[in-house]
């Protein structure tokens, strides 16, 4: 290869992005999904969305206040043509509640996607997998693309796929804990158990956590607090964008095998004075 061709090839390599994330037939340019909660202002949230490169952002469905004029919809700040605004069912403790909230979210008319949460425990915010399966089945039958937040359990993941989930979203550690990937093996088990996308949802605390998850080969990551609770959320959003992309590229590259002892990188032959 001549120098000019090499430069061209190098340029292509530098700009080669990771492959796309596809959920229920819809392709997204970023494997990072962010939440819109806990920001000090909607302005910061929008800046973080831009810096993160995410094309999906979750929102919660809540009662309006009839008495507070500052209680405004986040749709004032998000362009549904630019990003997928993904309603969640956060705060629901039964399948019936979650189904009701999912229907309300869909009635906003943005898409058929829903992030399904059925919480079973207030302290750990672990999912109630029985309620989750029931709600997934109901909503999938109604034409929803259901993205259930679930425990890192391959059996449950397979059951969710059978119930019609469009992806499974196992937790890496408890919601809002920032502890990172506590059990990479179970995340791998989940990936092996299903053929739908696996998106790590919850637990990522910093950029290396995101890279570790992506290097495992998960299809994407959903995070909120890691960005929103950083001292400088906008810069952290950019860090996460880079980490998710770096982790994915590393996964797609196929890492070198690990070994116990050193192996020289320079030739052992022809050493000076040998």
């Amino acid at each position, binding site marked *: 290869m001549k120098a000019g061709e090499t430069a061209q090839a190098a340029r292509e390599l530098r700009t080669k992005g990771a492959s796309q994330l596809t959920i229920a037939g819809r392709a997204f340019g970023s494997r990072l999904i962010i939440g819109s909660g806990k920001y000090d202002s909607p302005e910061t949230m929008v800046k973080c969305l831009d810096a993160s490169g995410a094309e999906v952002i979750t929102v919660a469905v*809540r009662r309006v206040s009839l008495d507070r004029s500052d209680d405004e919809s986040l*749709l004032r700040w998000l362009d549904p043509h630019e990003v997928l605004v993904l309603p969640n069912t956060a705060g629901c403790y039964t399948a019936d509640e979650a189904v009701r909230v999912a229907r309300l979210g869909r009635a906003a008319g943005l898409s058929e996607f829903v992030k399904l949460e059925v919480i079973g425990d207030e302290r750990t915010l672990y999912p109630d997998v029985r309620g989750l399966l029931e709600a997934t089945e109901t909503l999938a039958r109604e034409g929803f693309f259901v993205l259930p937040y679930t425990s890192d359990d391959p059996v449950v993941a397979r059951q969710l796929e059978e119930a019609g989930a469009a992806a499974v979203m196992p937790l890496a550690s408890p919601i809002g804990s920032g502890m990172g990937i506590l059990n990479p093996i179970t995340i791998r088990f989940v990936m092996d158990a299903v053929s739908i996308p696996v998106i790590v949802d919850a637990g990522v605390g910093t950029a290396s956590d995101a890279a570790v998850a992506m290097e495992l080969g998960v299809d994407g990551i*959903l995070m909120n607090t890691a960005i929103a609770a950083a001292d400088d959320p906008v810069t952290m959003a950019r860090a996460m964008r880079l980490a998710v992309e770096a982790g994915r590229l590393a996964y797609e590259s196929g890492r070198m095998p690990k070994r116990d002892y050193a192996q020289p990188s320079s030739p052992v032959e022809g050493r000076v004075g040998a």
Partner: protein
Amino acid sequence: MDIVVNGETRAAEPGVTIERFLLDHELDPEVVVVERNGEILARGDLAQTVLAPGDRLEVVHFVGGG
């Protein structure tokens, strides 16, 4: 007449539509979703649906969440 909105009793003028009720409370019918007596209303129906005494409304919108 009284209706119940998001769990609280509210006064509404007889004959008022849901759209009018929302606008009177500075709520944009384009960004909220309304459930009336357990049934979700299509956005296009808000201007036609007249409130009846005792109606139970759930009026929701999107807020920040993860």
